[in-house]
């Protein structure tokens, strides 16, 4: 039933359907949104009914992303007219100021929202984004930590914090954030894989073994995750080559690495079929795997 009504919607108004899909999936394909949205607003505004307001918001944000201040301004004016005094529209006005790099003014805008509503998470996060845009990483990290003490369940914030820590090379703290995310999202292969990458980067035998475990876990959750597959291969190879491991551990890791090699080769054989262009990258992988095997034994 739902499938039928979706395709019916699409048939009726494909552009509107596209915009909705992009909203729901949280896609940041701003150029496309501007293309589709601008036409919709200019040509078909009357037919959009109440959806027009959410479309104005979506198009405005996309327009800011594409430096289309003219379009963003138009959308903002329409929203201001329709929703005077709205916090949500105030936030959009703040975002426009950010896009124009008027960070002081934007910050004031968000402060005024927070005065009326101290729990407004969107305004708080925008303030942190300003710090990030200004390159003030240490402050952004501090503010984000404070925010998370209050809003412990905000996944997006935890992930943002992990990224900030990675950029500051603070891998221990990045790992902590990713551990939070893995706990609340045990089926998300990307968090497992990112955690494994951080552990690998930290280095040392213990971290390498952890990284191997989590690369393997990511693969279990999604066997198409190439980063996890390569990661498993590399971590297992390094462990096997380490003078600190006993024969049993070495043997096990040689097996893991061999399995991973197999899988990688198969994946690349499949990928290389047909298209001429991939031959270069396929050959590079083959040789690389061969050369790494030699150093391992």
């Amino acid at each position: 039933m739902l499938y039928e009504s979706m395709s019916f919607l699409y048939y009726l108004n494909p552009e509107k359907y596209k915009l909705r899909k992009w909203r729901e999936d949280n896609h940041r394909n701003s150029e496309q949104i501007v293309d589709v949205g601008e036409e919709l607003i200019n040509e078909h505004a009357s037919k959009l009914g109440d959806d027009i307001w959410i479309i104005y918001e979506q198009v405005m944000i996309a327009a800011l992303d594409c430096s289309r201040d003219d379009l963003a301004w138009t959308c903002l004016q329409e929203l201001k007219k329709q929703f005077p005094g709205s916090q949500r529209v105030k936030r959009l006005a703040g975002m426009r100021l950010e896009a124009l790099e008027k960070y002081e003014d934007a910050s004031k805008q968000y402060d005024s929202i927070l005065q009326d509503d101290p729990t407004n998470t969107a305004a708080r996060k925008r303030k942190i984004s300003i710090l990030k845009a200004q390159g003030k990483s240490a402050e952004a990290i501090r503010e984000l930590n404070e925010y998370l003490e209050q809003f412990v369940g905000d996944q997006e914030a935890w992930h943002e914090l992990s990224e900030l820590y990675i950029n500051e090379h603070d891998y221990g703290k990045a790992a902590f954030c990713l551990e939070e995310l893995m706990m609340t999202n045990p089926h998300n292969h990307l968090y497992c894989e990112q955690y494994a990458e951080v552990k690998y980067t930290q280095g040392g035998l213990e971290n390498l073994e952890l990284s191997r475990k989590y690369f393997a876990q990511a693969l279990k959750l999604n066997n198409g995750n190439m980063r996890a597959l390569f990661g498993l291969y590399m971590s297992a190879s390094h462990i096997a080559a380490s003078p600190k491991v006993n024969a049993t551990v070495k043997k096990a890791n040689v097996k893991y690495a061999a399995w991973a090699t197999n899988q990688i080769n198969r994946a690349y054989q499949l990928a290389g079929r047909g298209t001429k262009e991939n031959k270069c990258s396929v050959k590079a992988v083959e040789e690389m795997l061969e050369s790494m095997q030699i150093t391992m034994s």
Partner: protein
Amino acid sequence: MGEVELSCLAYVKMYLHGCLFPRCSVNGLLLSSSPAGGTVCVTDCVPLLHSHLPLAPITQLALTQVDVWCAQTQQRIVGYYQANACVSDNSPTPCALKIADKIAEQCNNAVLLMIDGGKMSPDYRVPPIVMYERKDTRWTLKDKHTIMLRQWEETREIASQLLDSGDHSLLVDFDSHLDDITRDWTNQKLNAKIAELSSPANGNV
């Protein structure tokens, strides 16, 4: 000090890499098909990452694979480029220095190139790049007069053209390759397009 020449192909792909991921820091490797000694001729580049630049595994993987490919195609890795997400700061990050150090171990006059994000718009008439070379153990700013871009106007024009036509989306970096391994990080298709645009037949010398 040593002279460095940057080819149209290398510049255009670096530039497009930055344009394709305007919200991310991006990096890549600079290659040369010329023999060692004398002027460093950067003839090509391989775009690497647009996410998690400081993390080790994928960087190591990419360096190894590009190394192998270079051996197969008679090229050498002669440098590293990076464009920071934060446009106001184009100084080399610790991870940039680390990777550049590693490259310098194998290549005497390796270069570290930072793309100045703030100067990438068409209004700027000069290449938006800053180059560093290794003196003793530190990376120091290179004298602008030792950096050559032949046919800069044509190169700039080609980069703009590809951006306008949307062809920059043809560019595949190593990150994108890992998302879909049927995509070619050696960018044969894009290379051909750039060669076409820069051929004498198009009025470019």
